[in-house]
């Protein structure tokens, strides 16, 4: 290979020390650390629920019904957040409830993201009739009232986690498709894409190696947002009894029961509500922090 002659131009100024790597940046962001810590705790609770929960979530004890949380008069030792109308330990039920919520969050949001983003990338990059087809599909799809669609799906598929997940994926993929399509179209206009064409990279390579990494920050932000939404949707569906069977504790189901006991035993409503709220906030903060750390433009 021919040898390049050394530069005759004066040496350029120093570049300066490299900034922190992505991981170092992430661990320094309190939002990311706090939120991911919380999510990690939730995952541990979900996985090891049977080991961590103090009581059997299904065990009823009518003698100990409506026991208030620790610190209030009438509290019982061993029942930190009290019991519900059937004497079941609220804390244990909340802990077991994370299983359902997290499963839905990761699986439903993940699938919606996968399907929607893929179609969005193709529509945004290929344009032409593919874009028209996908965009019209999204428009028509989004015209269906989501609540009606969920109920319809559950009626057809039968109540249970699988129908909740299907309902969320079927409805929310359009959100990903729209946003990712716009983002992809924006990136496709950039000169670095033209440069890749000039160098002779093939079209699929340009889409996945050049454009996709620049779409990832938006995708992650949207994904974590969607996780929060999925958790809430599941809670709504189990609130109306369309989710898993009433044996399995879910936050939504607990909210439905607690609503009726709100005057005698407010903690039965408050506990799952607080858990729901904290989880959604954690997902959003995580998404916000990740998007900020991963996107060089936002960071400056």
């Amino acid at each position, binding site marked *: 290979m021919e*040898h*390049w002659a050394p530069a005759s*131009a004066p040496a*350029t100024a120093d*570049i300066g020390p*490299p900034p922190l790597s992505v991981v170092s940046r992430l661990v320094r962001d309190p939002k990311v650390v706090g939120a991911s810590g919380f999510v990690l705790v939730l995952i541990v609770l979900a996985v090891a629920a049977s080991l961590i929960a103090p009581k059997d979530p299904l065990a009823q004890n009518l003698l100990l019904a409506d026991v208030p949380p620790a610190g209030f008069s009438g509290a019982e030792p061993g029942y930190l957040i009290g019991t519900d109308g059937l004497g079941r330990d609220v804390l244990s039920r909340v802990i077991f409830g994370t299983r359902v919520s997290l499963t839905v969050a990761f699986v439903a949001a993940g699938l919606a993201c996968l399907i929607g983003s893929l179609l969005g990338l193709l529509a945004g990059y290929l344009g032409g009739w593919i874009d028209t087809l996908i965009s019209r599909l999204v428009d028509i799809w989004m015209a269906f009232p989501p609540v009606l669609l969920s109920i319809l799906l559950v009626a057809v598929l039968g109540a249970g986690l699988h129908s909740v997940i299907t309902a969320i994926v079927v409805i929310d993929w359009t959100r990903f498709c729209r946003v990712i399509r716009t983002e992809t179209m924006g990136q496709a206009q950039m000169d*670095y894409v033209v440069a890749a064409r000039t*160098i002779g990279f093939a079209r699929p390579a340009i889409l996945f190696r050049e454009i996709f990494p620049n779409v990832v920050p938006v995708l992650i932000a949207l994904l974590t947002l969607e996780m929060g939404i999925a958790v809430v949707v599941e809670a709504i569906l189990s609130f109306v009894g369309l989710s898993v069977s009433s044996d399995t504790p879910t936050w939504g189901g607990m909210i439905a029961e607690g609503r009726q006991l709100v005057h005698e035993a407010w903690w039965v409503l408050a506990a799952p509500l607080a858990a729901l709220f904290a989880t959604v906030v954690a997902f959003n903060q995580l998404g916000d922090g990740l998007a900020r750390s991963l996107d060089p433009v936002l960071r400056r």
Partner: protein
Amino acid sequence: MAEDLLVARGLVVSYGRHGAPAVLHGVDLRVGKGETVGIVGESGSGKTTLGRALLGLVRPAAGTVAFAGDDITALDERSRHPLRRRMQMIFQDPMSSLNPRHTIGRILIEPVLLHGLADDRQAARTLVHGVLDRVGLARGTVDRYSYELSGGQRQRVGIARAVVLRPDFVLADEIVSGLDVSTQAQVLRLLQELTSEMHLALAFISHDLSVIRSICQRVVVMRDGRVVEEGACERVFAAPASDYTRMLIDAIPLPEVDPGWLARGASVEAAATA
């Protein structure tokens, strides 16, 4: 005279659907081997579109482009691939022309591997180190990202990327427009050295006539999608044949006090831009 390398004839380009107004109205251009040709025009002149048509990035509605004697106007991507190595481009905005998610090393090494100029990644890396040395960047730049570099450094990376494949022809599209005058001087010097060392044919698009005068042998003046004047820089600047060219030259403010400059040409401009 230099043997022709790139010849464009009667190029007509329009964006959008059929019947959309044309951006280029039958443009001719030729660039000889090792020759530097300036393409100058104001906004809306079509100079950027002309550059893209030469590289096959937009398909002309009419006209031909020939490279080394072969007609390349209607080639599909696959047939065009071997040509890609021989025709390269440097962009105006190095911020958007360098993928912010790729290291500089990746930006330079991948093209080398794609065109088989190195046997493996290690050899490609060595080659890239050589190019970085040549353009005056530290070797450690391979591990950096574009946003860590200054404007002038980024533009050097752009130049490195354009020449690493040892092309025959390079299109430089307004490459110094956003740079300070001292950085501009460095970048242009580097480009001049490289074009003469590598015997590159260079098409230099710019709105700045003074820059073009300094580095180009020939100049093509464009206005509203047409070539208004064309010829050796010496001749065009000394005795412009077209009123428009004369107006352009006259509008350049030289860094010296000239009390009559502002008033000169007022009536000509008023007529031309009415």
